[in-house]
Each structure stands twice: as structure tokens, then as C-alpha cells.
């Protein structure tokens, strides 16, 4: 039984690693958050499996904490980070491999919306649109 538990735990760790492909592929931030969600649940499963070995009962508390707090990051994502537009493909600014930014790349697209549903309270204005000036058309 102990060997089976360890084997299942190993299997779950491997599924987590395979799931990382989706983080790499994206394409949207929400897709990547999904992987984080699945990884959280898989982590809980691995921890309860490991906790069944003698002397490791404390790991069940870790699983408890993980399951309790798994949604905090998602909430922060939904409230703060989700409404910005996705950065264009290619290296982001500031990365060693980043090319020089094109001078006319300043199109501020506001994609946040106030839906008629409960999301009406989401006061998250467009992320990244915080430069207060309206962008000028390219010369």
C-alpha cells in the first residue's frame, strides 16, 4: 500500500511537470493561471498521499493550508492583473534579449469592462494604461 501511494504521488508529480507545457504555451494569462490552479490541487493530492506514511502526518496540515489559500492568488489575479491586455509577442522590455522598442508602439488599449453582473465592483481599470496621457498618433 505504501509503495502504491508513493507511485501515485510520483505519477501526480509527473502530471504537474507535463502541465507546465501549458504555462509555456499560454497563450493568455488566464491559461497560465489555470495551470497554477491545477498545480495547487495536484500539490494537495501529493501532500495527502505523502502524509499517509508513518510520522509524516504534519504534511496533512500543509495540505490543509494549501487548500485553504489556493484561491487567494486567483482573486488577486482577477482583481488586479487580469484586465490588462496581453503584451505583444516577443521579449518584453527590460529583458536582456529585448529589442529596442518601436517608437510608435504606444497604443493604449483599454480592455477592462464593467459588466452588468457582479463584476461591476471590480474597480480595476486597465492595467498598464496608467500613463495619464492619451497617446499621440505616430508622426
Amino acid at each position, binding site marked *: 500500500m505504501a509503495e502504491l501511494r508513493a507511485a501515485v504521488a510520483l505519477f501526480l508529480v509527473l502530471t504537474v511537470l507535463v502541465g507546465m507545457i501549458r504555462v509555456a504555451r499560454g497563450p493568455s494569462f488566464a491559461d497560465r493561471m489555470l495551470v497554477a490552479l491545477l498545480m495547487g490541487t495536484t500539490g494537495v493530492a501529493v501532500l495527502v498521499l505523502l502524509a499517509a506514511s508513518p510520522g509524516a502526518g504534519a504534511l496533512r496540515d500543509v495540505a490543509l493550508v494549501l487548500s485553504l489559500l489556493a484561491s487567494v492568488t486567483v482573486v488577486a489575479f482577477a482583481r488586479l492583473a487580469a484586465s*490588462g*491586455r496581453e*503584451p*505583444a509577442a516577443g521579449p518584453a*522590455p*527590460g*529583458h*536582456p534579449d*529585448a529589442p*529596442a*522598442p518601436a*517608437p*510608435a*508602439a*504606444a497604443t*493604449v488599449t483599454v480592455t477592462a469592462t464593467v459588466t452588468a453582473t457582479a463584476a461591476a465592483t471590480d474597480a480595476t481599470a486597465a*492595467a*498598464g*494604461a*496608467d*500613463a*495619464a*496621457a492619451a*497617446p*499621440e*498618433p*505616430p*508622426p
Partner: protein
Amino acid sequence: MSAWQLYALSGLAWFGVGMWGLFAHAHWVRKILAVNVAGSGLFLVLAALARRATTPAPDPVPHALVLTGIVVGISATALALSVARRLAEVEATARLDEDATHEPAAPPAGADARAGGDAAPPPAGGGAPP
């Protein structure tokens, strides 16, 4: 190779990757992230060293050190991110003033040093007519 050596090596590599990121990145937030990566790698090294103990349970002193380290690490991270945020705010206003008064039509100079992000207007994107 025993399990602790495996994890110590892994933590060492992890730490090295973080250090590389700290030196190689020019963006503040990426630097902060890299320092955190390096710190976690060190924690793994410490926890692996705790397993060297010949007693059945690992050595509790490194564990206590890592606990302290994690909490100090998150507070340092939060402070550093606040400073970076403030920097971003100050920078945004400074850049707008500059646009409006001094350099109405200059091309974005030093582009690799001032990669302005695609959401913000570039350093001199035309500005108001003088």
C-alpha cells in the same frame, strides 16, 4: 549519491540560476524575482544540509534558519516592490513633463536603456505642440 547530496546540488544550481538572473536582468521587478529565486535555492541547500544529521529526524537549527529567512525574504521583497512601484509612478510623471515642455519631437534616445514598455507612451512620442 545520497538524497541530501542530490537536493544540495539541485539547490546549488537553483541558486546559481537566480544569481545569474540578478546580474543579467536590467528590469527591477525581474531582479527582485531573481533574488527570490536565488534565496529559495539557498533554502533548499540549507534544508538538504539538515538531512546530513545521523539522527532519525533532521537537524532543527537549519530549519529554523530557513523559516526566519522565508519571512524576512517576503518582507524584503514587498519593500523592494513598493520602491519599484514608486519609481514607476515618479517616472511616469517625470516623463510626461519632459514630453510637454522640453523635447517635443526628439526620437527615443538610448532605446535599450529606456525600454519604456509597450503600454506607456515612449519617452518622446510627439508630445504637445510647443
